């Protein structure tokens, strides 16, 4: 029976080649746009996570802090939950590091009368507390301790980057939703057009004793085939574009040790499966309305 339904669905697809090609291309474009956003999120999230892994909290001390104050502060910080390691960086060491980093601008330091940098502690936090909110809470706790002038962990640029990613995420979800609805209507309309073109045939099928399942099954298979082909076409285009962009701009796109990744096999099948689900839903809507009349 399933073979018969597949045969009928394929016959339908082949006999309405133009309509079905347009449907596959449109579904492919929708999937291409949505999956491009997904690919962008996957890579920017990986980037953000790798940055978060490298987060160090720097605690700058008041200039008047004494040796005793420093030891006391070190002890207090060590007692705080999620603090993994703590290192003292004297202002002399800090200046030396700065000079090393700015070797080509050494003239800037020539007229320096006194060391403007403060003493500091560099804190490494546990893996479990690398969420931005947790780091912020930890920083707040440290800042309330005596002799602490400032706490720094790159919060400003991480927050800005997170905000931009979230904005893109929101736009991506909205566009994804819109394209999902568009795909749904495209499939529903294609099936509806086929149904109307075969209205008389369906009526005859009913008169000779066909039940609704027998009539509906080939259309569901048709919808699933169209959406699967459309999504595979969209993802294949994305894959080709990914390889093209990577081969042309590999050097400028690679950020440190981070490799720009493509969708995993699981994500690929998730897209194809999701698209087929939408295809099935489109058929369901059309058939429900059509067979009701």
């Amino acid at each position, binding site marked *: *029976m399933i073979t*018969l339904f597949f045969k009928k669905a394929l016959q339908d697809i082949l*006999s309405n080649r133009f309509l079905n090609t347009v449907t596959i291309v449109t579904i492919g474009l929708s999937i291409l746009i949505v999956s491009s956003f997904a690919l962008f999120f996957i890579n920017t999230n990986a980037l953000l996570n790798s940055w978060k892994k490298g987060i160090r909290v720097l605690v700058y001390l008041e200039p008047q802090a004494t040796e005793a104050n420093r030891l006391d502060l070190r002890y207090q910080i060590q007692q705080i939950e999620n603090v993994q390691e703590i290192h003292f960086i004297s202002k002399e060491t800090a200046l030396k590091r700065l000079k090393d980093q700015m070797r080509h601008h050494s003239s800037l330091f020539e007229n320096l009368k006194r060391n403007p940098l403060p003493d500091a502690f560099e804190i490494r936090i546990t893996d479990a507390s690398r969420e931005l909110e947790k780091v912020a809470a930890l920083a707040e706790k440290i800042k309330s301790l005596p002799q602490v002038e400032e706490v720094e962990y790159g919060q400003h640029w991480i927050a800005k980057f997170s905000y931009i990613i979230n904005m893109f995420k929101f736009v991506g979800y909205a566009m994804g939703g819109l394209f999902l609805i568009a795909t749904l209507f495209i499939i529903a309309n294609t099936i509806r057009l086929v149904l109307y073109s075969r209205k*008389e*045939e369906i009526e*005859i*099928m*009913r*008169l*000779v*004793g*066909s*039940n*609704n399942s*027998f009539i509906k099954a080939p259309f569901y298979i048709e919808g699933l085939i169209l959406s699967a082909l459309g999504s595979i076409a969209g993802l294949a285009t994305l894959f080709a574009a990914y390889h093209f962009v990577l081969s042309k701009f590999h050097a400028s796109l690679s950020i440190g040790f981070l490799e720009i990744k493509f969708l995993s096999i699981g994500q690929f099948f998730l897209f194809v499966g999701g698209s087929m689900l939408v295809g099935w839903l489109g058929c369901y809507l059309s058939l429900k309305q059509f067979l009701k009349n």
Partner: protein
Amino acid sequence: MKTADTALIRIFNVSKHYGSKPALNHITLDVFKNEFVFFTGPSGAGKSTLLKLLYLGESITEGQVLIDGMNLARISKSRAHVLRRKLGIIFQDYKLIPGKTVFQNVALVLEARGLSQRFIQKKVHSVLRTVGMEDRQRAFPLGLSGGEQQKVAVARAVVGEPKIILADEPTGSLDAEASENIFELLTTFHNRGATVLFATHDTELIRNTKHRIIYLKQGHLQV
């Protein structure tokens, strides 16, 4: 013995109205197993309407119809196939699917019942042989004459071995010879056990018949 209990089709006080216009008025009659019944009368008498009510092509305005123990009023649209598998329907305009071959048109009835392809092949060939269309099984309906198309429609109607054959003006578009052929085919299947309800306004066909004739005029039974 023909009693109300042995009736295959029971039509009781059935009326059909299209808006305020009556098409059938208080029709009551029984059709018995293996009976061949002609429904005749002028155009607009209600012959086709009556057959349409029997295959749920139209809804009944008033009254009750029982077919092989099934009360038509209690059959939902989604369950209409249960009744229709007991029936073989033949239309004046053949209602063959143009995109399907002769074989595929006939096989559709058995495919819808989920029967095996081997059985379908055997059965369809056998029926097409009976109606004399075996050598045209690969032809498409539009390549056939009216008489040939109606033979295919007869094959489609009988391939599922229905208890009842409803023939709605099956010779209405055919010449005398083709009409005679269709009538002979229906007689063949009647002789094999089918109950046939034959709506026609062709007086030639019923002139010397031994079968029961029911006259309808303006939606009323004429006794």
